[in-house]
Structures are given as structure tokens and as C-alpha cells.
């Protein structure tokens, strides 16, 4: 760890009417990086997406909940959902969206980014994603959208395989009705 003398050391600031010297500071870091696994359910989700270009979800019959992203268990009743897999067409509706103008540090973005939470049809879940092929002023809450995936050969079985969602070319039929 390198101790740094701050340039402002000698600058006086007023605190509660008393002049005092701004404190010396030094830097530190937590020297770690991370290796994550998708998990048993996540691995199946991403392998299906990579190979077949569709989503896969799990379903709790008792709680009438369809989990997307899929889970191995129902968070309400702890039922084992490992035998309840179903294919899901990656289409949905814009549940909410925002137009992002600044980056993490508060600096301006060169062009604003469209970020939405998309509820996937036939499920009780969804994904945070980017909206593609649409101008911010044209986005509407509840509009139908469909997935834009990376080309099959470029897919790696990660979230980056999903480039975003674009307005649906035809109004998507809901695969089945819930409740």
C-alpha cells in the first residue's frame, strides 16, 4: 500500500467556526476478482438460449408461478422445480423503461441509452435489457417486444448473447394465459 501525501494537506477549511487542516489521506484496495457460476438452473437457461435461441422457465403448480430466470425451487413454498422445465418464446412487454443520460461517475453519455424491464409473456418474471431499433420518444409502457440475439456462432451462453429487445414485428400471441 502506497502512502500518498495529498496536495491539499496545507489547505485550511472551516469546521464549526474553527479553522482546521484537511486530513492526509492514503489509498487502499481490496485485491480480489471473482469467478462466478451460473448455477444449476442458470446453466440450463443459458445453454438453451445458446443452442436453441429460446428461453426456458420453471413452474410451480401449487403457487401458480412461472420463474424466469428459472429457479430450481419455488421461493414461496420451496417445491423442487427441477422437473418442471418449459420452453418460452423470448417475447414480452415493456413493464417500465428509462432513458439514461449519465454514466456511473456522473459524466455525460455520448448518446442516451434506453433501458427497460421486460416482462416475458407466459411467465411471472423478466429481464432488465436494452431496447433496440426504436427512438426513446416512441417507446410505450406495455408495448410488445421480441429478443435480438447474437448470431448462433457468437453465442457463449452468457447474458451478452442477448443484445436487447426490439419492437415486435407482429403482435405476439401469449403462449398461454395465466390465472
Amino acid at each position, binding site marked *: *500500500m502506497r*502512502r500518498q501525501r495529498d496536495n491539499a494537506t496545507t489547505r485550511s477549511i472551516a469546521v464549526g467556526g474553527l479553522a482546521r487542516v484537511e486530513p492526509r489521506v492514503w489509498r*487502499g484496495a*481490496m*485485491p*480480489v*476478482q*471473482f*469467478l*462466478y*457460476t*451460473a*448455477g*444449476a*438452473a*442458470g*446453466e440450463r437457461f443459458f445453454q438453451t438460449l445458446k443452442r436453441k435461441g429460446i428461453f426456458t422457465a420453471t413452474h410451480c403448480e401449487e403457487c401458480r408461478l412461472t420463474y424466469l430466470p428459472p*429457479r*430450481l*425451487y419455488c*421461493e*414461496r*413454498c*420451496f417445491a*423442487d422445480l427441477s422437473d418442471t422445465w418449459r420452453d418460452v418464446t423470448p417475447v414480452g412487454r415493456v413493464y417500465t423503461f428509462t432513458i439514461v443520460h449519465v454514466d456511473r461517475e456522473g459524466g455525460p453519455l455520448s448518446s442516451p441509452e434506453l433501458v427497460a424491464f421486460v416482462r416475458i409473456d407466459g411467465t411471472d418474471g423478466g429481464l432488465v435489457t436494452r431496447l433496440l431499433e426504436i427512438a426513446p420518444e416512441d417507446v410505450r409502457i406495455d408495448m410488445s417486444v421480441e429478443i435480438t440475439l447474437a448470431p448462433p456462432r457468437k453465442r457463449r451462453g452468457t447474458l451478452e448473447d442477448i443484445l436487447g429487445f426490439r419492437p415486435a414485428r407482429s403482435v405476439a400471441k401469449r403462449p398461454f394465459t395465466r390465472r
Partner: protein
Amino acid sequence: MKRKPRRKVAVIGAGLSLFMRRALETGKELSYYAASQALETAGVRLKDIQAVVMATAPDAFDGVHMKGDWLLDGAGGVRKPYTRAYVGGGSGVFSIISGWTLVASGLFDLVLVVGEEKMSSCQPHPQGAFLTIFDHTIERPLGPNLLWIFSLEQHRYMSSYGIRNEDIALVSVKNKRNALNHPAAQVAANLSVKDVLASDVVAWPVHRLMVSPVSDGAAAIVLAAEHVARRLSEKPVWVQGVGWSLDTSYWGNRDLAYPRYVERAARMAYGMAGISEPRKEIHIAEPYDPFAYKELHHLEGLLLADRGKAPDDLARGRFDRTGELPTCPSGGLMGVGNPIAAAGVMKVCELFWQLRGEAGARQIPGNPERGVAQAWGDLMQIGTVAVLGVH
């Protein structure tokens, strides 16, 4: 202790995932395996559970900030009062204490307690995260890691009482051998003292085989109030006493040869349990053993051996599975593995199975009636103790 709690609390179910070097399963999924198994053995469903306590150590291990909340659904805490118990390495046993307060207070009758750690996420080694537990002004500029501290402490322990490294290596031999009978074990082995001392020196006098591994895993128990426990369980295991205590966080102001914080925590738990002669009244112990010497150190703090004499007791077989006071019959952290918070809960699970006579090939003889589990952590100065028994 100001007042004895009036409500009795029992453990009525226990569950464990495999402990392993790197699990495909997420921490949530590991938690679910352990928690759902604990519920099943207790004969209760998640909807019967009124509150959940989740024990998990530093966020940086899993690489998820505020991971207690992230693990919520895997621990069964959705739409329930949910608390994270977090005192570093002591979290596992502290989580039982946390759960116990929720039931003993009369607030809830059925509480699920889950411990989880997925340390394989943290690269190149969790020691990088541990760096920042040291004081940023008086310690971190030296670039310390935990091995320094444990080695310094082990050396002080050895020199204070004239203990040889061979005496300490025997803990690794015993625990790794005990773990051969544990179906969840990660590093079970049949080794000799010579093998242990032939392994690399990581920081003298500590050799690699005297250090527990980096692990992924989860463990869980179900706690019930007396009237519920008697209805649901034929063999409830009662939490007879709990205790915890912290020493100063300054290394320089602590006694490194003797863990006084463990003694204080033990005296609190023994007082609550009505134990006046722990060596006669406790039949089985699961002291915290992340490093080989720590089991001996902690047994002395738990007043189960004379100061500096635990190595002699170990050498004459007192702590063997068939000995007078079996210690770490599970195989402990040295044998089963060390997914930090889960390892502490695993120790309570072991007492639960042993006291019910359900430990299979690990079962100690003589129908044990009372056991003690202990963990240690925070800034290496907390002792957490739970006494469990069949009455």
C-alpha cells in the same frame, strides 16, 4: 447473564449440502438444498416457518455485495422476517444464537437457520478480501494475511506451554480421518503426523495440511419452541445454553496463548445450561478448527482441557471418536471443509445427529446426552458457543 430465559428452544431438523472446492450451484441453490433438507427432517413446510436467520461471512467471498439479501430466496426468507447473522467466522454458531433469541423471546415458534458460503468465487484467493479486515493505518501497509496472524498465534501458544508442532499436527490427522465417514466431506484423508509435517510450510510453524481448505457449501437447522418441538419431534435436541463475547480488536492487547473470549462465551453458555463441571457434563465437542492448533486452543478456552495441556490429552486419545471426550467427530473444518458460516452450522448439525444417535458410521459410543459447538471469527476475537442436549 441477567436473567435466565424461560422459553425452551429445540433443534428439530438439520440439513447439509456437499462441501466442495467449486460448486456449479449458486449460493442460493446450495442454501436451498440444505434448508429444504432441514425442513424435511423436521417435518415442517416452508409456510410453517415464521422467521429466517441467514449466516454468511464477508460479501467479498461470494463476490456479491449485501449477499445476505441476495441469498434470501434460497434461504426461504421471501415474505418473512429475515435477518443476517454476520460475525465473520463465528457466524455459523452465532446464527443459532440469533435464531434462539427469536424463539426464546417468545416472538416466534418456528425459525429456520441457514449458513452459506461460496468461497470459490473469490480470486485469486479469499486472502485478498481478508487484507481489508486489518487496520488500514497500523497493519495494512505491511500487506498482512491471516496466515501471518495464525502462525504468530500458534507460535506464542507453543512457546508458552512447550508444545511441539508434532502435537498440533495430530489434530489434522484425527479430523481428516474422522471425516472419512462424513458423506459431505471435501478433504477427508488417512494421514500420519509425518505426512502433515512433510507438507509445505505456509508460514512457519503452520504447514499446508494444518490449514482448512477454501470451500463452497451450506448447512441449515430448524429451531422450535418447546410446545411445537414436543408436538413435531420425538427426539428434540434442546439448546440448553448460548454465549458469545468479543475481546479487543487490537492484536497487541490480546492474550494470544489463551482465548479468553472463548472462555467468557463458554461461561455464559454453561451458566445458562446449569453446567458447573464442563469436563464431566459435556460428552461431545465440536470446537472451531480452521487451523489445527485452533481446536486445542479452543478446547482450553471451553474449559474442557487444562491450559497448554490439550495436546497431551489429544496424544493419549482423549479426543478420539471412542475417547473420553470426542472432539470434531464430524471431521471438522480440517476434514469436512470450511465454507465459513456453513461450517459453524455444520458443527451444530453434527451435535444434532450425534445426540439423536443418527450419526451412522461417525456415531460416538455411549449415548451422549450433551454437546458443545463453538466458532470463532470477527476480527479473530469473537467466541460463539452453543450447548445442546437431549434433556
